[in-house]
C-alpha cells in the first residue's frame, strides 16, 4: 500500500465539511461559502495530485482502516478514475464558486443547508469514482442520489413532484444495482472489484452472473438517464434551481457513464460484455435511439433549460455509443466525451443560471437583445454551443471525431450517420438561440440614425463570481480540444482495457 493520503482526503474533506458547515452556519452564515469553496478546493487539488501520481507511479491503492482487500474497502485509482476525479472535482469547485449569488437570490433562508447538500452531493460523486468496491460504490451512489433528491426539490413550482418522480426512478435503479451486487456476492463471496474480476471469468456461464450483469446495466442506465430510462430527468433538471442543475446535470450522468465503463470493462472482461452476451451491441443501439430522440425532442422545446436537458440525454447517448462500440477509438471517444460534455454542460447550465439570475425569462423567443446586455455570457454560450454541435477547435469536435472513427472501425455506418445527423440537429437547436440573442428584427431600420447616438452595449452582466467560472469553462472548452492529443497519450490510453 502506498502512503499517499490523497485518495481518502478527496472524500473525507467534503464529507466532514458538509457536517461542519451546518455548525458553522449557526455561528456565522457568511463563513459557509468560503468554507465550502475551501473544502472543494482541497478536493480539486488532491485530485490533481492524484492524477500526477497515477501518471508517474501507476495505480494507487488505499486500504480503508488498514483492512486488506478483499475484506476491507479499498480505494483504487487508475488513470480512468483519476481522469474522472479531476473532472468532477474541478467542475464542482467552479460551480460552487458560481452558486453563491444564485442561491442567495433564489432561497436566501436555506443557504446553509444548500451548501451542506451540495458538499454531500460532491462527496457522493467523488466516492463513486474513487472506490474499488462494488458495495461501497452503492453507498456513495445513494449519498449522491439522496443529496440530489433534496437539492432538486428546493427548486421552483413542480420541483418537489419532479424530485419525487426522480426518487422513485432513482430508487428502482439503485435496487437493480444492489440486487446485482447481491447476486455477485452470492456466487463469488467478494465485493472487491479487482477480486471480482479475478473470480468472475470462471462463472461467466452462470445464470446468476448473467442476471447480475443485466440488473447492473439497467440500474446504471437509469442513473445515467440513458434513453428510454431517462424519464425522470427532463422534469427534475428543468425545475431544479439553476445552481443545482449546473452541478448535477454535467456530473451525475458522467459519473454514471464512468460506472458503466468500469463494470463492463473492468469488473467483467471486455470479451464477456462484447462477445459472450451482445450487451455492447444492445447498448450501442440503445444509444443510437438516445441520440436521435434527445436531439429531436430538444427541437420541440421553447424553454432553453429544457432544451439543454434533452441535449444532455443525447450527449449521454454519445458516451453510451462509444462504450457500446467497444473498440479503441470508440472508448477513447467516450472517455474524452465524459470530460468534454461535463465542461459543455456545466458551462451551458451556468449560462442559463446567469440569464435567469439577471431576470430574463428562459423562453428562447424572448432572448432578443440579450447579447447587448450580457456580451461575455453570450460569447461563452456561442463557444459551448459550437462545441456541442461539434465544430473545431471546440472540444466537442474531438470526441465526436473519435466516436466517428470508432464507428467506422466497427463498420457501423448507421452509427456514423447518427453522429453526423445529430451534429446538424444540434446546429439547428443552437443557432436558433444564437439568432435570437444576436439578431434583432428591425435593427436595420435604425440605420438612418447616426451610429454615435446609440448606446451600444448596456452592460448588465452576471456578477463576477458567476462570470469567471463561466469564462473559465468556456476557455476550457476551447483548449482541451486542442490538447486532446496530450490528454489521450498521457492519460486516456492507459485508461483503456488492456485488450483494446
Amino acid at each position, binding site marked *: 500500500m502506498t502512503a499517499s493520503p490523497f485518495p481518502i482526503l478527496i472524500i473525507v474533506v467534503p464529507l466532514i465539511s458538509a457536517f461542519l458547515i451546518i455548525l458553522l452556519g449557526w455561528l456565522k452564515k457568511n463563513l459557509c461559502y468560503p468554507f465550502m469553496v475551501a473544502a472543494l478546493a482541497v478536493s480539486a487539488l488532491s485530485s490533481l495530485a492524484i492524477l500526477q501520481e497515477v501518471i508517474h507511479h501507476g495505480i494507487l491503492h488505499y486500504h480503508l482502516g488498514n483492512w486488506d482487500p478483499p475484506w476491507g474497502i479499498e480505494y483504487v485509482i487508475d488513470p480512468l478514475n483519476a481522469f474522472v476525479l479531476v473532472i468532477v472535482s474541478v467542475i464542482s469547485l467552479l460551480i460552487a464558486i458560481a452558486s453563491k449569488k444564485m442561491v442567495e437570490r433564489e432561497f436566501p433562508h436555506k443557504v446553509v443547508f444548500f451548501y451542506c447538500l451540495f458538499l454531500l452531493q460532491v462527496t457522493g460523486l467523488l466516492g463513486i469514482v474513487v472506490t474499488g468496491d462494488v458495495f461501497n460504490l452503492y453507498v456513495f451512489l445513494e449519498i449522491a442520489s439522496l443529496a440530489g433528491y433534496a437539492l432538486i426539490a428546493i427548486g421552483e413550482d413542480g420541483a418537489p413532484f419532479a424530485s419525487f418522480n426522480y426518487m422513485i426512478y432513482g430508487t428502482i435503479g439503485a435496487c437493480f444495482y444492489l440486487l446485482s451486487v447481491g447476486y455477485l456476492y452470492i456466487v463469488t463471496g467478494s465485493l472487491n472489484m479487482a477480486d471480482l474480476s479475478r473470480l468472475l471469468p470462471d462463472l461467466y456461464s452462470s445464470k446468476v452472473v448473467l442476471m447480475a450483469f443485466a440488473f447492473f446495466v439497467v440500474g446504471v442506465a437509469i442513473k445515467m438517464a440513458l434513453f428510454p430510462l431517462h424519464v425522470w430527468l427532463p422534469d427534475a433538471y428543468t425545475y431544479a434551481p439553476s445552481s443545482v442543475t449546473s452541478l448535477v446535470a454535467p456530473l451525475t450522468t458522467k459519473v454514471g457513464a464512468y460506472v458503466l465503463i468500469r463494470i463492463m470493462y473492468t469488473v467483467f472482461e471486455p470479451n464477456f460484455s462484447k462477445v459472450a452476451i451482445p450487451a455492447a451491441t444492445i447498448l450501442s443501439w440503445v444509444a443510437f435511439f438516445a441520440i436521435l430522440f434527445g436531439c429531436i425532442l430538444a427541437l420541440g422545446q421553447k424553454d432553453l433549460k429544457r432544451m439543454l436537458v434533452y441535449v444532455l440525454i443525447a450527449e449521454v447517448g454519445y458516451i453510451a455509443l462509444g462504450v457500446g462500440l467497444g473498440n479503441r477509438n470508440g472508448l477513447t471517444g467516450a472517455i474524452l466525451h465524459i470530460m468534454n460534455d461535463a465542461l459543455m454542460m456545466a458551462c451551458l447550465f451556468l449560462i442559463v443560471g446567469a440569464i435567469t439570475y439577471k431576470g430574463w425569462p428562459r423562453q428562447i423567443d424572448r432572448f432578443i437583445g440579450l447579447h447587448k446586455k450580457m456580451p461575455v455570457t453570450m460569447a461563452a454560450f456561442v463557444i459551448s454551443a459550437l462545441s456541442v*454541435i*461539434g465544430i*473545431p477547435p471546440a472540444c466537442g469536435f474531438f470526441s465526436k*471525431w473519435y466516436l466517428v472513427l470508432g464507428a467506422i472501425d466497427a463498420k457501423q455506418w448507421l452509427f456514423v450517420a447518427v453522429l453526423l445527423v445529430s451534429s446538424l440537429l444540434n446546429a439547428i437547436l443552437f*443557432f436558433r438561440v444564437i439568432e435570437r440573442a444576436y439578431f434583432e428584427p428591425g435593427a436595420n431600420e435604425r440605420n438612418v440614425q447616426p*451610429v454615435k447616438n446609440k448606446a*451600444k452595449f448596456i452592460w448588465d452582466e452576471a456578477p463576477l463570481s458567476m462570470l469567471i467560472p463561466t469564462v473559465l469553462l468556456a476557455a476550457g472548452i476551447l483548449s482541451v480540444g*486542442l490538447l*486532446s*492529443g496530450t490528454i489521450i497519450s498521457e492519460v486516456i490510453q492507459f485508461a483503456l482495457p488492456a485488450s483494446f
Partner: protein
Amino acid sequence: METIYSVKPILALLVSAVGAMLILFTGERRRNLREFWTLLAAALKFSIVASMIPSVIKGKTIECTLLHLFPGVALQFRVDAFGLFFATLASALWIATAVYSIGYMRGLQAHSQTRFFFCFAFALHGALGIAFAGNLFTLFIFYEILTISTFPLVAHKETPEAVRGGRKYLAYLLTGAVLIFFSMGVTYGLTGKLDFVAGGFLQGHGSDNLLRFLFATFILGFGTKAALMPIHEWLPTAMVAPTPVSALLHAVAVVKAGVFCVLRVVLYVFGPKLLYDLDLWLALAYFASFTIILSGMLALAQDNLKRRLAFSTINNLAIIILGAALLSPSAITGGIFHIAAHGFMKITLFFVAGAIYVKMHKESISELDGIGRKMPITLGSFAIGAMGIAGTPPLVGFISKWYLCLGSLEAKEMVFLFVLLISVLLDIAYFFPIIYNSFFKKSKDELKPGIQEASMFMVAPIAICAILSIVLGVSPNAFVHFFEMASFAMKSILGVGG
C-alpha cells in the same frame, strides 16, 4: 524538397485573430481606432505572407507544427506554393476590402459595425488557416472557423430576408462540413494519415468503389463551399450580405477556399494517377462543365446585379475545378492561376455593385441606364473587370482562359474546349448589356448633373483592383509571382521538374 521551420505561418494567422480581438475591445465608441486595427492587421498579414514568397518559389516549404493531436496527425501548417498562392491572394485583397468596407459601412451608417469587422478579421484568419494547413484535419478546423465567422456577416442586415439567407448558408455549409468530416474519418481509417502530399496519398488503399464513394462525399462536402451546382443555392441567397462581404468572401475567401479545398482533395489527397485509374477525373470534369454552362445561362436571367455576379462566380469557380479535373499541366496551371485572376476581377465587379448601391441605392440591372456617365471611374472599372472575365486580352482573365483551353487540348478532350468557349460567350452575353446600358443609354429618371462618385474609400480600391487586373494580365508575375507559384504548384503535383 527543402523544408524550413519557421513561425511565420502562425504569425500570419495570429495577426488577424489578434486584430479581431482588438477590434472587439475597441468597439463602436472609438471607431477610428477600430478601423486602424483592421488596416494594420491587413497590412501586417500581407507583408508576413509576402515575405514567405521568395523562399517558396525557390522550392522550399515552410513548416510549423503546433500540437500533436493524435497518431499521424498534428496541428500543422505547411506552406507550399499552392497554399501560399491562395494566402497571398486573400491577404492582398483583404487590404483593398478593408479600405472599401470602411467607406461602405460608414456610407450606409450600418449597425453593428464592430461585429462586422470582428467577424471579417476572423474569416480571414480561417482563410489563411485553410491555405497553410498541412493536413486535412488542420484544414477542416479552419474551414469550420471560416464557415462560422461568415454566418454573422451574411445575416448582417438582420432583416427576415438576411436571416433566411444566413440560415440557408449554414444549412448548406454545415451539411457539407458533416460530409467532409465523414470522408476525413474514412480517409484516416484507410491510411492512418491525413497529411497532404503533392500527387496524393490515397493510392493503394481501399477498394475502387469505396474510393469512388469517398471522392463523391469529399466533392459534395467541399463542393457546397465551392458552390458547385446543384448545391450552389446558398450563394445567390447570401447576396443579401453587405457588399464587402460579397466581394471578399463570396468572390475570394469563402468560395475560393471551397475551390482550394476541392483542389487540395483532387490533387493532394487523391492525386492525378488515382483519378485516372478510377476515371474520376472525367466525372468531375463533366460535373464542373454542367455547372459552367448552367450557371452561365442562369446568370442571364438575373436582374439583381449582385445575383448576376453570384452566378458568374459559380461559373468561374467551376472553371477552376474543371482545370484541376483535366489534370494536364496547362489546365492545372490555368486553373490555379484563375483563382487569383478571377479574384481580382470579381472583387472589382462586386465593389462596383456596392458603390452603386451606396451612392445611387440601385440594385437592379434594369435601373442602371446612364449611370456610367455619373460614375465613370466606377463603371469604367466594371467594364475592365467584365471584359477580363470574358477573357479579353490583355486582361488577366485572358491568361488563365488561354491556359485552360490549352489544357483541354493537352487532355485530348475537345468537349471541354467547347465548354470553355461557350462560357466565354455567355460571359459576354450577361456582362456587355450592363456596360452598354450604363454608358450609352439615357437614364429613365432624372439624375443630378455632374459626376457623383462614391467616397474615396470606395473608389480607390475599385480603381486599384481594376488596374491590377490589367497589370497582372500584362505581366502575370508582377509584384508577388502569382504565375510562378501556380506553375510551381503544378510541377510538384505532376512530379515534373519540381
